[in-house]
């Protein structure tokens, strides 16, 4: 699945990173608790979250996550967007709720990745 596929499936819009629209995403995780995200390394992952602070981008950075989707129509402030730009992490926003957004991506073939 690509960033573009995720955008279309979730009817999402870009907050940053349209130039990376073709980037491949292999796994996903959905959480508002960043330590839970940090507990399992995944490959080329997308993070779905309702959390909107800079630590979401930091967490993504440490985990080599390639794309963050903010659910429930949440919009981060400019600090968060700037940090994502620096790190070239795609930011998307969807009005869908967490459960539905995860379900749709799962239905379209995206999985949680190996737990190691």
């Amino acid at each position, binding site marked *: 699945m690509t960033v573009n596929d995720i955008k279309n499936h979730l009817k999402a819009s870009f907050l940053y990173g349209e130039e990376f629209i073709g980037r491949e995403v292999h796994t996903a995780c959905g959480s*508002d*608790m*960043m*330590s*839970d995200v*940090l*507990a399992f*390394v995944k490959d080329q992952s997308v993070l779905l*979250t309702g*959390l909107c*602070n*800079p*630590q*979401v981008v*930091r*967490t993504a*950075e*440490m*985990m*080599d996550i390639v794309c963050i989707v903010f659910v429930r129509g949440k919009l981060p402030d400019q*600090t968060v967007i700037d940090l994502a730009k620096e790190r070239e992490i795609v930011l998307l926003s969807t009005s869908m709720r967490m459960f539905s957004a995860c379900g749709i991506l799962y239905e379209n073939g995206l999985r949680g990745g190996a737990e190691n």
Partner: protein
Amino acid sequence: MSDTIKLKYTVSPDDFTRAGEASSDIKSKLKRMGVSPEVVRKVAIAMYEGEINMVIHANGGEIDVEITPDEITMTLKDKGPGIKDIEQAMQAGWSTAPDNVRNLGFGAGMGLPNMKKYSDEMEIQSVVGKGTTVTMKVKM
């Protein structure tokens, strides 16, 4: 990379927005040195959780990083309240973090367990009322 490289970071107290800057810096430095992505990720995650802990619990502190051809050693030192029961603190899900920290996405009781998980060796020395020193090693 035959020599030992030493780096020092100061973690600012109560600045949740900036927490993670040290880990971010070490991550890009290690990448530039050509360290394997897996090792870079382990160091970055372990140190990041440590940094967050220092901001949440200990009014910041200092991190020393030593890089040799064999391993990376991170020493995180704070003058915080100390850990009363280290064994309990190591249990996944056990946390003393206040609710406002949970609203920020942390305080789930996964910090120390994650640090242990991503480091090859971890040692905690803590004196209640004086502070805590966590030493983590990641092998190259």
